[in-house]
């Protein structure tokens, strides 16, 4: 991988990666930027030693998501004030962001299938049809799985934070 290829890949993936992560951090700019930066640095290290994956964006998203989960797990054991959230965020209060991140952390513990469908619907803003196409299942099946995932999430949270629509 030459420097030109590396930078080309960066320019192609940075917007979707940033959007993917910003939705999960509820628009927390500082946290999103840190995670995106760390994801690319890990990519450079890993791809230099191994090879560039077939889908660099998917690899980056997976790594970014894991970084966020690790970050949240570490912060869960300290109080809310210590959570590194940006109070000047454009549309969210610090408390809202904290609750949003807590939900994301809860989703990440549900298991791969449920987490994937909830994240796709709530964070990535995908429609039932789009999810059905991506997962190669029927829309009805997506609805069923989404309902069960919601119930599982509800049981994990103290009060109903899953009520309401999508992020956007």
């Amino acid at each position, binding site marked *: 991988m030459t*420097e030109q290829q*590396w*930078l080309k890949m*960066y*320019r192609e993936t*940075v*917007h979707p990666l*940033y*959007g993917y992560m*910003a*939705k999960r951090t509820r*628009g927390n*700019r500082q946290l*999103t*930027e840190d995670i*995106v*930066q760390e994801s*690319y*640095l890990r990519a*450079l*290290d890993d791809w*230099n*030693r191994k090879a560039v994956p077939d889908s660099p964006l998917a690899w980056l998203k997976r790594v970014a998501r894991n970084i966020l989960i690790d970050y949240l797990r570490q912060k869960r054991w300290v109080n809310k004030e210590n959570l590194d959230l940006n109070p000047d*965020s*454009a*549309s969210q209060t610090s408390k809202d962001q904290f609750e949003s991140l807590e939900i994301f952390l809860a989703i990440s513990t549900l298991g791969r299938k449920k987490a994937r469908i909830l994240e796709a619907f709530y964070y990535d803003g995908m429609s039932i049809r789009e999810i059905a196409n991506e997962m190669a299942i029927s829309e009805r099946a997506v609805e069923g799985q989404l309902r069960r995932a919601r119930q599982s999430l509800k049981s994990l949270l103290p009060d109903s934070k899953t009520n309401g629509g999508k992020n*956007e």
Partner: protein
Amino acid sequence: MSEIYEPDNQFLDRLEWQLSSEYRRASRLKPASGKIAIPRKVVAITCMVGILMTGVAVIKAAEYIQDSWRKKIEIARAETEVKLKKAHLESTREIASRAEMRFSNGLVEEEEYRVIQIAAKRAELDWNSSLLNLDEVKASGVAPRNELYAPEMGGRDFVSERLKIEIKEIELDLELFRSRVERLKQLVEKGLVQEDELDLIQSEIANRKMMIDKIQERLDLRKRFVAGEITAQEVEIGDRLNVAERNLHLAQSRVDTLKEQMMRLKTLETERMISPMEVKQMQYALDAAQAELELATMELDVLKKLK
């Protein structure tokens, strides 16, 4: 899509610059083509293991040098010697056991039987000597030392123990010669053997007795050295004197024996029972023995002056 899900340009430019710099830095650190890229964790672990191994190796090397590789070689050599001597002992014991049965059945003569018995006893002494050497090597880490001024090892005086074994070996010779003397006397009386053969055996017996005396003197010297009564140098001179006296005695004994034989041969020559050539050969042997005697006398004189 909301602005909050879009990166700002400042962040993008900064990140691009950083990733470009990181790429160049990684390229500089990247191993040359053809080489296998080793993960940093593996390198770190390898380094740690290497350092530990080096430390262990240094300690082990120090211990190994301390113990001395020579010690291992010497022990192996001494152990091999013990095994060989043991095998020899078992073999001679078996032969002796068979000889005893044959002797009791009258199938073997007494002299042959005695020789075999003494060979078995000698083999046992050899085995004891090899065990002694092995003990000394284990205690000292070096080859056994036979000098009278050698230090004691592990509270044991190996030099004296070896000298005592030497005495026992000579006593075995004496035992054999004495048995021959009795038999030869009977044969001389019957006129079956000439008297000079008996003289030779008695001369050998006298020599062995002298050798035992000399070993006893060495033992005394050793005892005095271990007790701290005399120095190593005094022991060395004393021991050389002892050896020189023994050599002088043996040379004198040989000269005396050869002179007697010469007288007999001359008588036989006058009776024309032997040729003059046989007398001449005896004269050469006597001349050589006398030269050895002179040399031994000179050596003794030099050592006495040193003392």
